[in-house]
């Protein structure tokens, strides 16, 4: 009894030893970066590090009227130091995101304080800028001073924390992210449906074709799968742009006039068409591998029992192909909601998805906390669908059918 157990244990350890290097590698090169980013969505120490005393004194402030002189004195000292250490810009940027217009107040005050040697600081700072007499300014500083904060996540779903601590909707003009998430889901749904509509018949055709022809047709499906994404995106720009091939053909055929050329790219149409093209192979391959396992005799049997072709399809073939439909649709949907490159290149202004907004906050607005929170929400959604995919299909069969 003891020998096989020890033997099994050794085999198990050897297997683990083979897996460990990759597990560690993925942990360091991939999981750790994701964790770093998620940390940034809740952890933002810049203001807390720059203004520790001010924030400690603000704790005691009741939130109405202006804070006591001691707060002003601490703020004046710490802002001056932040200016000297060149961190005041980062502080100002964060405060500005909570209360618009405060960026110049903070940087300007920090600069001008250098010329003022002594207090009283409340008068001195209010003389530099009226905003220091406004409680909202101090609320903004207190909010950004939280080392661990939920405000990026609140912001990512169009909510905000009010000065009294309650949670409320953002003002109408700042409610953009929920709508964008919703649009991303809808566009992904449309693309998934289009892929199913286009992919189902050809997967069926390939599954029923004789082997050599099936191989040839499969290669046609795989050509776009292997062709560089940037090449495929370029191809759609070339085809769809106003001076492009498709518009030229339509004009030559007299279907549209020369000045009535269709805008098919750099908008949502471009995003949907190009993404359907890019993701179609991911639908066809799982469908094909399931359909190949459906015996053709089933349809013949249904026909011989008196079913019309439509009845036979709906009652016999379609139910058996459902695992492929589920696998393909789920995979296309997962890939679509995180898509970045295609919408960035052919989406124009109205064809952008949530990933493009994350890129915008990473590269342009430099609001990394918000970018991380938007990414966190997106990642949670993707992981949920990924877990579902694992239950239904098994992740080791991903992508290649």
């Amino acid at each position, binding site marked *: 009894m003891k020998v096989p157990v020890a033997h099994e244990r050794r085999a198990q350890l050897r297997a683990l030893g083979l897996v460990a290097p990759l597990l560690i590698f993925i942990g360091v090169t991939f999981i750790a*970066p994701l964790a770093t980013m998620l940390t940034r969505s809740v952890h933002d120490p810049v203001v807390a590090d720059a203004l520790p005393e001010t924030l400690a004194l603000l704790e005691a402030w009741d939130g109405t009227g202006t804070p006591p002189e001691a707060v002003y004195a601490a703020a004046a000292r710490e802002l001056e130091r932040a200016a000297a250490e060149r961190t005041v810009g980062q502080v100002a940027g964060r405060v500005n995101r909570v209360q618009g217009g405060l960026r110049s107040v903070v940087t300007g005050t920090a600069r001008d304080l250098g010329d003022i040697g002594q207090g009283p600081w409340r008068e001195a700072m209010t003389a530099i800028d009226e905003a220091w007499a406004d409680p909202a300014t101090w609320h903004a500083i207190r909010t950004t001073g939280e080392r661990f904060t939920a405000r990026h996540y609140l912001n990512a779903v169009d909510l905000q924390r009010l000065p009294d601590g309650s949670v409320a909707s953002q003002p109408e003009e700042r409610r953009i992210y929920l709508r964008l998430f919703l649009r991303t889901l809808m566009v992904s749904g449309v693309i998934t449906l289009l892929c199913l509509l286009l992919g189902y018949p050809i997967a069926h055709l390939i599954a029923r074709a004789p082997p050599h022809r099936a191989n040839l047709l499969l290669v046609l499906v795989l050509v776009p799968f292997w062709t560089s994404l940037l090449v495929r995106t370029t191809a759609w720009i070339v085809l769809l742009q106003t001076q492009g091939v498709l518009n030229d053909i339509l004009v030559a055929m007299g279907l549209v006039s020369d000045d009535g050329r269709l805008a098919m790219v750099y908008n949502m149409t471009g995003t949907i068409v190009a993404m359907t093209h890019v993701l179609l192979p991911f639908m066809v391959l799982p469908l094909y591998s399931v359909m190949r396992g459906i015996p053709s005799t089933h349809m013949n049997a249904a026909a011989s029992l008196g079913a019309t072709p439509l009845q036979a399809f709906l009652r016999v073939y379609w139910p058996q192909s459902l695992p492929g439909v589920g696998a393909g649709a789920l995979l296309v949907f997962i890939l679509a909601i995180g898509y970045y490159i295609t919408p960035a290149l052919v989406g124009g202004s109205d064809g952008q998805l949530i990933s493009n907004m994350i890129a915008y906050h990473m590269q342009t607005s430099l609001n990394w906390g918000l970018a991380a929170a938007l990414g966190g929400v997106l990642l949670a959604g*993707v992981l949920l669908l990924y877990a579902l995919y694992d239950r239904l299909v098994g992740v080791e069969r991903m992508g290649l059918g």
Partner: protein
Amino acid sequence: MTAATRPGPGRLAYLAFCTLVFVFLVAPILVIVPLSFNAEPYFTFTEGMLRLDPDAWSLRWYREIIENEAWTGSLVNSMVIGVSATVIATVLGTLAALGLANPAVPARRAIMGILISPMVTPVIIAAAGMFFFYSGLGLGQTHLGIILAHAALGVPFVVVTVTATLAAYDPNLTRAAASLGAGPWTTFRRVQFPLIAPGVISGALFAFAVSFDEVVVVLFMGGVDQRTIPRQMWSGIREQISPAILAVATFLIAFAALLLLTVEWLRRRGRA
């Protein structure tokens, strides 16, 4: 029987629809090839091209990319990064797939889930995280950082392909080799590896294709010295769109076709 000899209208419509879908899949890619020989800086067929006037066709865009150091330099970068990332992903991925083939591995499903996750994680999230993390390690704007990142993105493809090949491997062969006196290493080298080699090579080609086509991580982490072909194309599409891009694209299409045919050939060999 009659349906097979004389296709009805329903079947004709079905075949016509399928043909259109295949055209949709392939035609956009093929259109690029003739346009890359355009003598004019346009993205559409000129009248001269349609008349097959030899003067309307030219190799000027090919000359331009060959003489342009930005493009040749990006090819070198792409190759160096792609090959290095592929080696890492293939070695580690194959070892892990061999380990995971043992059903006794604890938490096998969870481990598989982690190893495949780079394939479904939205690349913008991965790239943003890598930007923070790798910069913190001093690997921002280095070849090494991008190589490690691309290796992580290529790993799932190696694990999936090798696992699929291993599923068809008969473990009795290992036992037979052992009973004939071969040690574990000899058994692996002489029996198991030759049988799973097509899967390993396919996985490697997938991993290479992933790196060779990756642009988002390079956008976030790479500097001027790490410009790859996709990065160069990205600027080309966004900034000064010139038909030189179509010439590069034609090269990439030929390259993709080569990769595809190799993998298909390996797949058939693996099955035979």
